[in-house]
Protein backbone atom coordinates (compact mmCIF):
# COMPACT_ATOMS: atom_id res chain seq x y z
CA UNK A 1 0.00 0.00 0.00
CA UNK A 2 1.49 3.33 -1.09
CA UNK A 3 1.25 6.24 1.27
CA UNK A 4 -1.75 8.43 0.47
CA UNK A 5 0.16 11.65 1.11
CA UNK A 6 3.04 10.63 -1.12
CA UNK A 7 0.55 9.71 -3.85
CA UNK A 8 -1.05 13.17 -3.92
CA UNK A 9 2.20 15.07 -3.36
CA UNK A 10 3.10 14.90 -7.06
CA UNK A 11 1.58 17.51 -9.42
CA UNK A 12 1.30 15.06 -12.34
CA UNK A 13 -0.58 12.60 -10.17
CA UNK A 14 -2.92 15.36 -9.00
CA UNK A 15 -3.54 16.31 -12.64
CA UNK A 16 -4.39 12.67 -13.42
CA UNK A 17 -6.96 12.69 -10.59
CA UNK A 18 -8.39 16.02 -11.89
CA UNK A 19 -8.90 14.49 -15.33
CA UNK A 20 -10.51 11.32 -13.95
CA UNK A 21 -12.91 13.46 -11.92
CA UNK A 22 -13.72 15.33 -15.16
CA UNK A 23 -14.53 12.03 -16.91
CA UNK A 24 -14.23 8.81 -14.98
CA UNK A 25 -13.13 5.60 -16.69
CA UNK A 26 -10.29 6.42 -19.08
CA UNK A 27 -7.69 4.40 -20.97
CA UNK A 28 -4.01 5.22 -20.66
CA UNK A 29 -4.24 6.72 -24.17
CA UNK A 30 -6.93 9.19 -23.10
CA UNK A 31 -5.16 10.13 -19.86
CA UNK A 32 -1.91 10.86 -21.74
CA UNK A 33 -3.80 12.93 -24.34
CA UNK A 34 -5.54 15.01 -21.70
CA UNK A 35 -2.33 15.60 -19.71
CA UNK A 36 -0.55 16.80 -22.84
CA UNK A 37 -3.35 19.01 -24.06
CA UNK A 38 -4.79 20.44 -20.87
CA UNK A 39 -1.78 20.46 -18.55
CA UNK A 40 1.20 20.70 -20.91
CA UNK A 41 2.59 17.51 -19.34
CA UNK A 42 4.65 15.70 -21.96
CA UNK A 43 5.78 12.70 -19.89
CA UNK A 44 6.15 9.34 -21.64
CA UNK A 45 3.34 6.81 -21.53
CA UNK A 46 5.63 4.66 -19.43
CA UNK A 47 6.04 7.46 -16.87
CA UNK A 48 2.28 8.08 -16.72
CA UNK A 49 1.73 4.35 -16.34
CA UNK A 50 4.04 4.37 -13.31
CA UNK A 51 2.16 7.34 -11.80
CA UNK A 52 -1.06 5.37 -12.25
CA UNK A 53 0.49 2.42 -10.42
CA UNK A 54 1.29 4.67 -7.44
CA UNK A 55 -2.27 6.04 -7.41
CA UNK A 56 -3.69 2.53 -7.70
CA UNK A 57 -1.51 1.30 -4.88
CA UNK A 58 -2.76 4.16 -2.68
CA UNK A 59 -6.33 3.14 -3.50
CA UNK A 60 -7.12 6.41 -5.32
CA UNK A 61 -7.41 4.76 -8.73
CA UNK A 62 -9.00 1.44 -9.54
CA UNK A 63 -8.68 -0.33 -12.87
CA UNK A 64 -11.35 -2.36 -14.55
CA UNK A 65 -11.15 -4.35 -17.75
CA UNK A 66 -13.91 -4.03 -20.29
CA UNK A 67 -13.27 -6.45 -23.09
CA UNK A 68 -9.56 -6.24 -23.77
CA UNK A 69 -9.20 -2.58 -22.70
CA UNK A 70 -8.13 -1.37 -19.29
CA UNK A 71 -9.98 1.65 -17.87
CA UNK A 72 -8.91 3.77 -14.89
CA UNK A 73 -11.44 5.07 -12.37
CA UNK A 74 -11.02 7.65 -9.62
CA UNK A 75 -11.84 6.33 -6.17
CA UNK A 76 -12.02 9.02 -3.48
CA UNK A 77 -12.60 6.71 -0.51
CA UNK A 78 -9.07 6.93 0.95
CA UNK A 79 -9.33 10.76 1.07
CA UNK A 80 -11.85 10.42 3.91
CA UNK A 81 -8.91 9.58 6.17
CA UNK A 82 -7.57 13.12 5.66
CA UNK A 83 -10.80 14.86 6.69
CA UNK A 84 -11.15 12.45 9.58
CA UNK A 85 -7.67 13.28 10.83
CA UNK A 86 -8.05 17.04 10.23
CA UNK A 87 -11.81 17.78 10.23
CA UNK A 88 -12.74 20.54 7.78
CA UNK A 89 -14.64 22.39 10.56
CA UNK A 90 -11.63 22.08 12.85
CA UNK A 91 -13.32 19.69 15.29
CA UNK A 92 -13.44 15.98 15.67
CA UNK A 93 -16.98 14.70 15.62
Amino acid sequence: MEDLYRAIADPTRRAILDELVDRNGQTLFEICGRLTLKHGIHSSRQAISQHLEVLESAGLVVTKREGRCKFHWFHGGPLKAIAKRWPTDGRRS
Partner: protein
Amino acid sequence: MRINLSSVLVDDQEKALRFYTGTLGFRKKHDIPLGAHRWLTVVSPEDPDGTELVLEPDEHPAVKPFKSALVEDGIPFTSFAVEDVAAEHERLAALGVKFTLPPTDFGTVIAAVFDDTCGNLIQIAQRTGAGPG
Protein backbone atom coordinates in the same frame (compact mmCIF):
# COMPACT_ATOMS: atom_id res chain seq x y z
CA MET B 1 7.38 8.27 -53.97
CA ARG B 2 3.84 8.18 -52.66
CA ILE B 3 1.89 6.21 -50.08
CA ASN B 4 -0.60 3.93 -51.83
CA LEU B 5 -1.21 1.24 -49.20
CA SER B 6 -1.62 1.05 -45.47
CA SER B 7 -2.45 -2.10 -43.51
CA VAL B 8 -4.56 -3.13 -40.58
CA LEU B 9 -3.77 -6.53 -39.09
CA VAL B 10 -7.05 -8.39 -38.71
CA ASP B 11 -7.91 -11.68 -37.01
CA ASP B 12 -10.42 -12.70 -39.70
CA GLN B 13 -10.44 -11.26 -43.23
CA GLU B 14 -14.10 -12.03 -43.95
CA LYS B 15 -15.26 -10.46 -40.69
CA ALA B 16 -12.98 -7.49 -41.35
CA LEU B 17 -14.43 -7.02 -44.84
CA ARG B 18 -17.94 -6.94 -43.35
CA PHE B 19 -16.95 -4.36 -40.73
CA TYR B 20 -14.85 -2.09 -42.95
CA THR B 21 -17.41 -2.07 -45.79
CA GLY B 22 -20.79 -2.76 -44.14
CA THR B 23 -20.28 -0.75 -40.97
CA LEU B 24 -17.64 1.86 -41.78
CA GLY B 25 -18.74 2.30 -45.40
CA PHE B 26 -15.52 1.67 -47.32
CA ARG B 27 -15.62 -0.16 -50.68
CA LYS B 28 -13.83 -3.34 -51.63
CA LYS B 29 -11.11 -2.63 -54.20
CA HIS B 30 -9.04 -5.81 -54.61
CA ASP B 31 -9.89 -9.34 -53.53
CA ILE B 32 -7.35 -11.84 -54.86
CA PRO B 33 -7.08 -15.40 -53.48
CA LEU B 34 -3.59 -16.01 -52.13
CA GLY B 35 -3.24 -19.46 -50.63
CA ALA B 36 -4.99 -19.61 -47.27
CA HIS B 37 -5.66 -15.87 -47.35
CA ARG B 38 -6.60 -13.09 -49.76
CA TRP B 39 -5.00 -9.89 -51.01
CA LEU B 40 -7.89 -7.81 -49.76
CA THR B 41 -8.06 -4.03 -49.90
CA VAL B 42 -10.72 -1.38 -49.36
CA VAL B 43 -10.90 2.29 -50.32
CA SER B 44 -12.97 5.26 -49.24
CA PRO B 45 -15.91 6.02 -51.55
CA GLU B 46 -14.85 9.66 -51.15
CA ASP B 47 -11.45 8.80 -52.67
CA PRO B 48 -11.77 5.58 -54.71
CA ASP B 49 -8.39 6.07 -56.42
CA GLY B 50 -6.70 7.04 -53.15
CA THR B 51 -4.77 5.10 -50.56
CA GLU B 52 -5.92 1.49 -50.20
CA LEU B 53 -6.30 -0.11 -46.81
CA VAL B 54 -5.02 -3.71 -46.78
CA LEU B 55 -6.96 -6.07 -44.51
CA GLU B 56 -3.92 -8.14 -43.63
CA PRO B 57 -4.07 -11.43 -41.67
CA ASP B 58 -2.53 -11.14 -38.20
CA GLU B 59 -1.11 -14.67 -38.14
CA HIS B 60 2.52 -13.83 -37.43
CA PRO B 61 3.23 -14.82 -33.79
CA ALA B 62 4.64 -11.37 -32.99
CA VAL B 63 1.44 -9.61 -34.01
CA LYS B 64 -1.06 -10.73 -31.40
CA PRO B 65 0.97 -9.66 -28.33
CA PHE B 66 1.60 -6.32 -30.06
CA LYS B 67 -2.08 -5.77 -30.81
CA SER B 68 -3.17 -6.83 -27.29
CA ALA B 69 -0.72 -4.48 -25.63
CA LEU B 70 -1.95 -1.52 -27.69
CA VAL B 71 -5.61 -2.33 -27.07
CA GLU B 72 -5.06 -2.75 -23.32
CA ASP B 73 -3.74 0.82 -23.15
CA GLY B 74 -6.45 2.17 -25.47
CA ILE B 75 -3.99 3.12 -28.21
CA PRO B 76 -5.28 3.37 -31.78
CA PHE B 77 -2.63 2.40 -34.36
CA THR B 78 -4.66 3.62 -37.33
CA SER B 79 -6.58 6.85 -37.86
CA PHE B 80 -9.16 7.93 -40.44
CA ALA B 81 -10.19 11.48 -41.28
CA VAL B 82 -13.85 12.44 -40.98
CA GLU B 83 -15.76 15.70 -41.47
CA ASP B 84 -17.69 15.46 -38.22
CA VAL B 85 -16.52 13.16 -35.41
CA ALA B 86 -19.70 13.66 -33.36
CA ALA B 87 -21.94 12.66 -36.29
CA GLU B 88 -19.80 9.59 -37.10
CA HIS B 89 -19.79 8.60 -33.42
CA GLU B 90 -23.56 8.78 -33.36
CA ARG B 91 -23.92 6.82 -36.61
CA LEU B 92 -21.45 4.08 -35.63
CA ALA B 93 -22.68 3.75 -32.04
CA ALA B 94 -26.20 3.20 -33.41
CA LEU B 95 -24.75 0.32 -35.48
CA GLY B 96 -23.38 -1.24 -32.29
CA VAL B 97 -19.76 -0.09 -32.62
CA LYS B 98 -18.04 0.12 -29.23
CA PHE B 99 -16.09 3.29 -28.49
CA THR B 100 -13.23 3.39 -25.97
CA LEU B 101 -12.94 7.19 -26.31
CA PRO B 102 -16.03 9.33 -26.97
CA PRO B 103 -15.57 12.42 -29.16
CA THR B 104 -12.97 14.48 -27.32
CA ASP B 105 -11.60 17.92 -28.17
CA PHE B 106 -7.79 17.84 -28.14
CA GLY B 107 -7.38 21.48 -29.13
CA THR B 108 -6.44 21.24 -32.82
CA VAL B 109 -8.30 17.99 -33.38
CA ILE B 110 -11.48 16.29 -32.21
CA ALA B 111 -10.95 12.54 -31.95
CA ALA B 112 -12.77 9.39 -30.94
CA VAL B 113 -11.59 5.77 -30.76
CA PHE B 114 -13.53 2.59 -31.49
CA ASP B 115 -13.01 -1.18 -31.60
CA ASP B 116 -12.91 -2.62 -35.15
CA THR B 117 -13.99 -6.10 -33.86
CA CYS B 118 -10.83 -7.55 -35.47
CA GLY B 119 -8.43 -6.80 -32.62
CA ASN B 120 -7.65 -3.13 -33.31
CA LEU B 121 -8.58 0.26 -31.99
CA ILE B 122 -9.18 2.85 -34.71
CA GLN B 123 -9.18 6.62 -34.28
CA ILE B 124 -11.43 8.95 -36.25
CA ALA B 125 -10.31 12.55 -36.25
CA GLN B 126 -11.47 15.92 -37.45
CA ARG B 127 -9.04 18.81 -37.63
CA THR B 128 -10.31 21.97 -36.02
CA GLY B 129 -7.25 24.23 -36.17
CA ALA B 130 -3.64 24.64 -37.21
CA GLY B 131 -0.96 22.26 -36.06
CA PRO B 132 -0.06 18.62 -36.54
CA GLY B 133 -2.71 15.95 -36.95
